[in-house]
């Protein structure tokens, strides 16, 4: 693939059951990046290949059919076969994003909330409603001193809409871990009612502890979220055709932030 110089290079990891990779690629490309969608077999064959990229993205889908539990088998495979280099990538402060199934993988692999530990300390469990939920929700962007520490979510409005589509999106962790996440300002998005108040089902679609929809690590470069920003790149994708400007949706800003961070 001919790579244009000065454009950041994104790798989207895919495997059996990965689904949202095409639209994720479109999202990054519109924001000005080169994108490769690469099968995990290729990455395992050539273990250092992953390090040559600037941004690592794990997309949504049903990797390995969600067998055993969502994201478990892919997390297991990535950790055992590519763990060393993935940890290197994470600690080098390069941007990493895990969306939906990708978030499940990051958490079950132990890359979030504490990549240093690289041990699973939280999980995404079955929705309280016991069913798959496909709907739009409102997200509150958590800010400290006017902004979030997460590079992906910088300069977003206090509340943005995004679509979710998952059966296992309930963020669960014990009290100690939760306390740490909150105190270190690692919560990026929380489910909310449209006016910022406490959300009831279905605006709280899964029963996540502390209504957590997305978190980052302490350094703010690794971001995992259940909602799908790649499905809100254009205004047209919003149910009422609302966007951040004439053409685009708020999801685009999230990817733009990571690209701009590298420039």
């Amino acid at each position, binding site marked *: 693939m001919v790579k244009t110089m000065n454009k950041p290079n994104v790798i989207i990891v895919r495997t059996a059951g990965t689904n949202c990779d095409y639209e994720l690629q479109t999202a990054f490309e519109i924001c000005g990046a080169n994108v490769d969608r690469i099968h995990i077999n290729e990455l395992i064959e050539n273990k250092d290949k992953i390090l040559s990229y600037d941004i690592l993205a794990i997309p949504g889908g049903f990797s390995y059919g969600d067998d*055993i539990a969502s994201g478990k088998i892919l997390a*297991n*495979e990535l950790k*055992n076969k590519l763990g060393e280099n993935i940890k290197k990538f994470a600690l080098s402060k390069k941007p990493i994003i895990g969306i939906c199934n990708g978030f499940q993988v990051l958490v079950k692999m132990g890359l979030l909330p504490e990549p240093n530990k690289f041990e699973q300390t939280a999980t995404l469990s079955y929705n309280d409603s016991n069913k798959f939920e496909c709907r739009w929700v409102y997200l509150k962007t958590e800010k400290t001193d006017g902004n979030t520490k997460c590079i992906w979510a910088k300069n977003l409005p206090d509340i943005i809409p995004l679509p979710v589509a998952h059966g296992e999106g309930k963020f669960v962790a014990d009290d100690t871990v939760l306390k740490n996440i909150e105190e270190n300002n690692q919560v990026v998005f929380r489910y909310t009612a449209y006016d910022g108040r406490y959300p009831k089902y279905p605006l709280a679609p899964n029963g996540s502890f502390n209504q957590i929809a997305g978190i980052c690590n302490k350094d703010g470069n690794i971001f995992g979220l259940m909602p799908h920003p790649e499905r809100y790149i254009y205004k047209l994708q919003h149910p009422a055709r609302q966007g951040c400007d004439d053409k685009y949706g708020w999801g685009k800003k999230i990817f733009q932030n990571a690209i701009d961070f590298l420039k």
Partner: protein
Amino acid sequence: MIYEIAIRTKKGFSNSHNVSLLNDIKIMGIDGVENVEYFPVYRIISDIDDKKVSVIANELLTDRITEEFSISKYKTSEEKETEKNSIEVWLKHGVTDTVSESVVKAIKDLGITDNVIVKTGHKYCFNGSGITVEKLNKIAKGFLANTLIQEYKIR
């Protein structure tokens, strides 16, 4: 050797699946059941050693945050112990088990190279004052097992 790993939700964590199962039982008009607990069960048939089975259970099959596992071991199905007031559902011989293929691959990814055969099943344990074999049969046939492709055992 046959190992059976049953996964249960830890106390203190809700399991929405159990709630909706109880609801389905009530809708069928069956009384006397106060609660029901669901366990995914994995059967590993192999000459593998016990320690490795623990690793598989701990690292792969269980979510360490919300779940815990128990392992039972036996040579033939006659030796197997079944819990009281329980229904076990397994696929009939010859029916494709899609999850088992994924588990076999994941075991390899763990670095365990022993030959394994994996089968996946479901266990339901019932609690209540009015549980009878007749009621359990009704529940099993009513919505837990499709006898065309699954078989169930009641105790």
